[in-house]
């Protein structure tokens, strides 16, 4: 991507912003009025005469530490002192697009790997300009001046000038479009752990999430939503709701019946008073059993050919040993701890949107459409996100807020209850696979035929992404979009690999969920490869390594984790280890799970998870480690506990009392090994998730001799599997 920063924007323009919007931690939400005042977000940072360097962070901060990591990249190349760095959340702007997502979307573990080169160049350009300005003032050769820790220094004469001073007095100089980058050995911050900028406010209670936004005169909205997919309201008591003290407006909208009130309590009471009666919806008989039956039936229907291997059929037919298995992974919910919410104020000529969103540009676009205002009149203020997990890339909550502000003429904050948040989530897509493979007499893999039935993630949001009945996003982990550098593929070199995909059409709404379909798909491929290893009489690590001969990074992650976990060595009585590896979003992760099984009550205790990762350079190592720990824990939560239940045509699971997630006493010890790597930078928000489930399932097989081909591995599932074996 070409660096395009104009000189005026870079220094002169920035000086105009003196002292504005600075808090002790450098962040707060800007109002639309402030942005109107000539604010043009075309730069990545500004230096003000108070010697503060403010970095605009294009990505949404949702716990991954992006505020800090991206600021580190700028600070390093700029030679700024970390103490003078402040950050501001960038508004929605074309200039802030990530070259990987080609949008301002915080998805696909793309922040560091997407912005790394751009921010380095931007920082380096500033450093060179500041040196030039100083040299000009001192009338000395540029080569005699050095930028260091927020100053330009002329050693010979002992003079130095702070960046703040230079920003104030500096004459105009040209912006170098191809600035000289530092050598890796010269890095000050990159590669060293820096404390996260967002943490102090998160500890004090001052951090502002979307749900905390308050606008004078604001109404609170709650929406009664249909219990079954596609259900329409038959009747509701508008009068009773309107009679609740504080209720200002009852409004049927496409999502349900909305109640707007002076307080949230009044909005909730009003919503309850509606007593909405709904019709039966699109598929009133849909429930857990019918869903599974439907998937099994779909497996027998023809799908679209994704990978065609001419010799697959023959190789399978002539295989010395055949292995066939059917796997099912149910829907899981995001359960971001902060439920969906959004605050919108549609005014006469502008519209302000305060949203905890992973996609501010998408929010801008939908608010513009709903408000009937051009996009340049819509100002999106991205707050902190109480988890993103892919859920907050969808703009549904922005649409609701905008509709209701437009109807009431007032600022409106929509808050979903936890029940709405789970029941009306857009889930990780349930998926069902049939896999067949052949082994020759020496136990070598000769063919692999794979059929997938799962919903299309792109069908509704980006129909052009579905080509010839194939949505590669739903296949991530098995096959990536043609030409994608993200390696969301099956990593093994498989002879005669045949892949067929049938788009499922159940009315269950689906969306990306941390690692998208890499996690459920990798559960299946990594469990199945383990089945093959055992069928071939080979060690699961050796079997994998043999198929990864030409995939150096994946191979190394397996070797490192096997060594660190003491693979092949004796384990304590009752313990068993399982391995899995998966690569996605440009990174490579292998894990070993050490578990024990209580065959009396069906509980699995995961004692320890070892992880080896290759993500290229780790920019902020401790933040990276936190992502790996968190990814493993979230992955383990879906491995052991999570499953959305359906009944009567809708989701039945409704709160954390019936949709359980992992608790503190259930977490394993986690040992992380970050492989020193000079390879291209990969993402790390999502890649730690996929290997967990298969590592645990493979360990379960080792412990019990029973292969469970579904998730979660909850006590009921475990007991049933053990009973069947007996």
């Amino acid at each position, binding site marked *: 991507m070409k660096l395009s920063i104009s000189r005026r924007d870079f220094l002169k323009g920035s000086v105009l912003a003196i002292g504005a919007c600075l808090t002790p931690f450098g962040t707060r939400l800007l109002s639309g009025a402030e942005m109107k005042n000539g604010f043009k977000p075309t730069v990545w940072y500004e230096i003000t005469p108070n010697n503060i360097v403010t970095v605009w962070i294009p990505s949404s901060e949702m716990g991954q530490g992006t505020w800090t990591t991206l600021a580190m990249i700028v600070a390093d190349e700029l030679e700024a002192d970390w103490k003078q760095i402040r950050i501001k959340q960038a508004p929605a702007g074309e200039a802030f697009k990530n070259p990987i997502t080609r949008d301002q979307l915080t998805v696909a573990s793309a922040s560091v790997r997407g912005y790394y080169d751009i921010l380095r160049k931007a920082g380096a350009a500033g450093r060179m300009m500041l040196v030039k300005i100083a040299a000009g003032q001192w009338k000395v050769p540029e080569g005699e001046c050095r930028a260091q820790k927020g100053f330009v220094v002329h050693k010979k004469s002992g003079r130095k000038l702070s960046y703040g001073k230079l920003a104030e007095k500096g004459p105009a100089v040209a912006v170098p479009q191809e600035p000289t980058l530092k050598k890796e050995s010269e890095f000050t911050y990159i590669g060293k752990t820096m404390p*996260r900028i967002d*943490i102090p406010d998160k500890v004090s209670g001052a951090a502002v999430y979307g749900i905390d936004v308050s606008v004078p005169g604001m109404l609170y909205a709650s929406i009664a939503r249909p219990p079954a997919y596609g259900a329409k309201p038959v009747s509701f008591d508008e009068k009773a709701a309107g009679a609740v003290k504080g209720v200002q407006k009852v409004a049927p909208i496409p999502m349900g019946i909305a109640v707007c009130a002076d307080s949230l309590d009044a909005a909730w009471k009003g919503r309850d008073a509606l007593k909405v009666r709904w019709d039966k919806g699109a598929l009133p008989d849909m429930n857990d059993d019918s869903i599974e039956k439907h998937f099994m039936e779909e497996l027998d229907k023809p799908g679209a050919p994704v990978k065609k291997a001419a010799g697959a059929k023959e190789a399978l037919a002539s295989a010395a040993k055949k292995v066939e298995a059917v796997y099912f992974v149910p829907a899981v919910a995001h359960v971001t701890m902060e439920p969906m919410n959004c605050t919108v104020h549609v005014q006469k000529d502008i519209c302000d949107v305060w949203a905890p969103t992973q996609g501010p540009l998408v929010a801008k676009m939908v608010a513009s459409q709903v408000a009937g205002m051009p996009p340049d009149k819509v100002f999106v203020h991205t707050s902190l996100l109480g988890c993103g997990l892919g859920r907050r890339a969808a703009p549904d909550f922005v649409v609701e807020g905008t509709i209701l502000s437009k109807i009431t003429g007032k600022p409106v904050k929509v808050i979903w209850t936890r029940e709405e948040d789970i029941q009306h989530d857009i889930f990780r897509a349930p998926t069902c696979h049939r896999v067949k493979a052949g082994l020759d007499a020496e136990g070598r893999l000769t063919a692999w035929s794979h059929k997938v039935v799962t919903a299309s993630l792109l069908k509704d949001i980006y129909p052009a992404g579905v080509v010839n009945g194939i949505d590669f996003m739903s296949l991530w982990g098995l096959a990536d979009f043609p030409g994608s550098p993200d390696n969301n593929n099956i990593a093994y070199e498989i002879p005669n690999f045949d892949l067929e995909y049938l788009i499922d059409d159940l009315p269950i709404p689906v969306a990306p969920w941390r690692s998208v379909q890499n996690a459920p798909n990798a559960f299946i491929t990594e469990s199945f490869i383990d089945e093959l290893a055992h069928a071939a009489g080979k060690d699961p690590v050796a079997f994998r390594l043999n198929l990864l001969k030409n995939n150096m990074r994946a191979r190394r992650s397996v070797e490192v984790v096997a060594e660190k976990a003491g693979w092949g060595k004796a384990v304590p009585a009752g313990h068993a280890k399982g391995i899995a590896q998966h690569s996605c979003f440009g990174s490579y992760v292998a894990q070993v799970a050490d578990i024990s099984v209580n065959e009396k009550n069906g509980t699995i205790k995961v004692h320890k998870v070892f992880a080896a990762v290759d993500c290229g350079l780790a920019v902020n190592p401790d933040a990276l480690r936190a992502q790996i720990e968190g990814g493993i824990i979230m992955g383990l939560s879906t491995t052991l506990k999570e499953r959305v239940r359906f009944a009567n045509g809708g989701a039945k699971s409704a709160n954390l*009392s019936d949709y359980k997630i992992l608790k503190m006493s259930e977490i394993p010890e986690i040992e992380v090994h970050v492989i020193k790597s000079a390879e291209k930078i990969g993402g790390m928000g999502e890649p730690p998730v996929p290997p967990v489930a298969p590592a645990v399932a493979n360990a379960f097989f080792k412990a019990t001799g029973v292969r469970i081909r579904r998730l979660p591995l909850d006590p009921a599932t475990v007991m049933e599997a053990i009973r069947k074996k007996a």
Partner: protein
Amino acid sequence: MVSLNVNGKKYSIDVQEDVPLLWVLRDHLKLTGTKYGCGVGECGNCTVHIDGRAQRSCVVPVGDAKGKKITTIEGLPKDHPVKRAWIKEQVPQCGYCQPGIIMQVSALIGESKSPDPDKIVAAMDDVLCRCGSYPRVKRGIKTAVEIVRKEGKRS
């Protein structure tokens, strides 16, 4: 009118007594550090201290909190051992659940004559985090207890 004592300040609020304390804190007093997570006392994100004990403010009607001493995350001193430990150990990720977790931990430390990190960890299962900050919460608890042991407990 409901009279409340929050973080050492007295408030008189025009609100019905059945409204959960959580929403009075958040929307009336603008103390938004206390978070809504489930509304049924399952996730602990809304934990505050009521007369020194950790309580789920989403299921406490504000009427029941009258005359009691309420402390929220904003009222816990900035240099409180738990807050210091949380920064030192870089505990939060998205951070949304952390005020509840911090209030739970600080109450448990406050209640015990000689706080034991293992016992505190064992009492943390009803406070949920989705990011998976648990390993660092454990470390944070250990560090907070070390600070308390070294410096003695504050009142």
